């Protein structure tokens, strides 16, 4: 079997069985990066030397029996908003264009302790604000299924790198759909865990009450294995939770008999592409045939999630991004008069248009006189949305729907109309508001040959139900490969 075609878990097993060395796998994937980067541009930084040195070190530890986990020796890509000690971390922004962190984020440390080889840092929408990876200050990433299309965003580089076999798996972050939507657009598996599952320590904050790190990978088995490594209680993140039910791989069971699956009618109305609709409903049918109890219901409040989300996310962003002041790190303007002018000019030159748009909106909704009418109102609506989900989970184990209303749009089609772009987040965003886990699994191709994703949503800490459902579906679906498998 070609190394690059292996899943992360398959590769680790092959390394353990001495069929492949860590060095061979790392060299193979670095060669693939070299070959494909000109076309897809998944990475902001590729750490060739670091990866090769690390491959040697990890192989030694495996040989000595110090490392034996299910991901030991597997090369991984990290979204560029997670700090990596000694490795450039830019958030795809000019303002952090030269930032080299002195520490690593907890999720990255967890991976390293499990024997990961870090290949580099993946491209993203600037500060994770966007749905296409086109707001990156360092150029667009292209969808490996069709390079005229976007990979989705904001974790577009991570999703595209997995799809293009430029890594074996990747970490992304999800504030309003930023793992699930690019996973759907690139035909890979993506999971946004329950808020608090994975430490946010070292994740450069966008909307702190919504941000969560999660895996982008080739299949559900990899997803479960990665979750077991990155989910941890971390004293350095006060919103990190005491872990329970973290034996995610025990949920890799082919059985959904009696699983109660609810399909929200509100997710299948106006605006949903008919091809996406039929692929997702067909997948639901597969689960029904496997013994799941599938029925439709009304979730309600769906159209209020986007305005509530953009109010809350913009407010938190305006506060979080105050730290970029041109003093301690990052970009400082060349010429200025005094401190305040230096702040203003550094920020105005350092941030891109979408980031400025959200900072302005956030500053406005938090300003005196508007705070109650906008910000507090959005937090009240968030409580109503959470309640609607609570009621749904009294009846269902899993909520099933599309990830996004369409497949990947063409490059350059989305940014001109922000509200239209925000509408693309309609099925993913309420999951972040309610702190729930959501999983995206490929369920078909449209006529253009672009992947379609199905989203499974669970109650807080019920990732295992999502994994079990997705795993059962994946087994029934069979391999998900593009028609003309790429030449490696």
């Amino acid at each position, binding site marked *: 079997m070609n190394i690059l075609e292996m899943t992360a878990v398959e590769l680790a097993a092959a390394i353990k069985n001495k069929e492949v060395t860590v060095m061979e796998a790392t060299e193979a994937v670095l060669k693939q990066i070299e070959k494909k980067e000109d076309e897809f541009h998944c990475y902001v930084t590729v750490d060739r030397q670091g990866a090769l040195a690390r491959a040697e070190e990890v192989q030694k530890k495996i040989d000595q029996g110090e490392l034996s986990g299910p991901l030991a020796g597997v090369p991984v890509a990290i979204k560029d908003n997670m700090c990596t000690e000694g490795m450039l971390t830019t958030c795809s922004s000019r303002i952090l264009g030269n930032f080299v962190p002195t520490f690593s984020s907890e999720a990255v440390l967890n991976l390293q302790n499990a024997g990961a080889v870090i290949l580099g840092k993946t491209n993203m929408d600037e500060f994770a604000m966007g749905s296409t990876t086109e707001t990156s200050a360092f150029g667009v990433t292209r969808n490996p299924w069709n390079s005229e299309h976007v990979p989705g965003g904001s974790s577009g580089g991570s999703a595209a790198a997995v799809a293009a076999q430029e890594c074996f798996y990747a970490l992304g972050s999800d504030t309003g759909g930023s793992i699930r939507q690019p996973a759907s657009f690139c035909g890979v598996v993506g999971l946004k865990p329950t808020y608090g599952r994975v430490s946010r320590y070292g994740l450069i904050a966008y909307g702190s009450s919504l941000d969560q790190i999660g895996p982008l990978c080739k299949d559900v088995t990899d997803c479960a294995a990665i979750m077991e490594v990155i989910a941890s209680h971390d004293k350095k993140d*006060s919103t990190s939770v005491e872990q329970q039910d973290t034996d995610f791989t025990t949920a890799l069971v082919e059985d959904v008999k009696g699983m109660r699956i609810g399909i929200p009618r509100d997710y299948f109305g106006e605006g949903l592409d008919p091809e996406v609709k039929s692929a997702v409903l067909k997948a639901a049918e597969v689960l029904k045939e496997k013994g799941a109890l599938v029925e439709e219901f009304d979730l309600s409040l769906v159209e209020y999630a986007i305005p509530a989300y953009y109010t809350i996310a913009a407010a938190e962003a305006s506060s979080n991004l105050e730290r970029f002041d041109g*003093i*301690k790190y*990052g970009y400082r303007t060349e010429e200025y008069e005094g*401190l305040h002018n230096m702040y203003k000019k550094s920020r105005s030159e350092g941030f891109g248009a979408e980031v400025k748009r959200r900072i302005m909106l956030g500053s406005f909704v938090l300003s005196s006189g508007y705070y109650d009418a906008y910000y507090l109102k959005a937090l*009240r*609506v968030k409580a109503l949305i959470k309640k609607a989900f609570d009621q749904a989970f009294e009846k269902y184990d899993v909520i099933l729907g599309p990830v996004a209303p369409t497949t990947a749009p063409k490059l350059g089609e989305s940014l001109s109309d922000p509200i239209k772009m925000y509408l693309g987040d309609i099925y993913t965003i309420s999951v972040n508001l309610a702190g729930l886990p959501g999983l995206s699994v490929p369920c078909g191709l449209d006529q253009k040959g672009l992947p379609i994703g199905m989203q499974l949503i669970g109650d807080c800490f019920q990732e295992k139900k999502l994994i079990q459902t997705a795993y059962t579906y994946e087994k029934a679906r069979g391999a998900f490969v593009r028609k003309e498998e790429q030449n490696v």
Partner: protein
Amino acid sequence: MANIISDETIEYVGILAKLELSPEEKEQAKKDMGSMLDYIDKLGELDTEGVEPMSHAFPVKNVFREDVVTNQDMREEILKNAPGEKDGMFVVPRTFE
């Protein structure tokens, strides 16, 4: 468009946000913010009387820990990221005369 953003509002928000927008950016920001607020006004359709604003999606307790230093002195590494550095300190513009 129901929400008309005045020049004064954009000026004021620019001060809060510490952003200096060009005249073209200001016009765009007025338009964008107006249409976003029109959209956000949709939330007004919902009766939220008596609903507590929810900051965290599920009940959590406040977390306390002792404030003890566990990391080592990394002054040099940290200062390497600073745009201006002198004698082990950050260089900032003169803040008072």
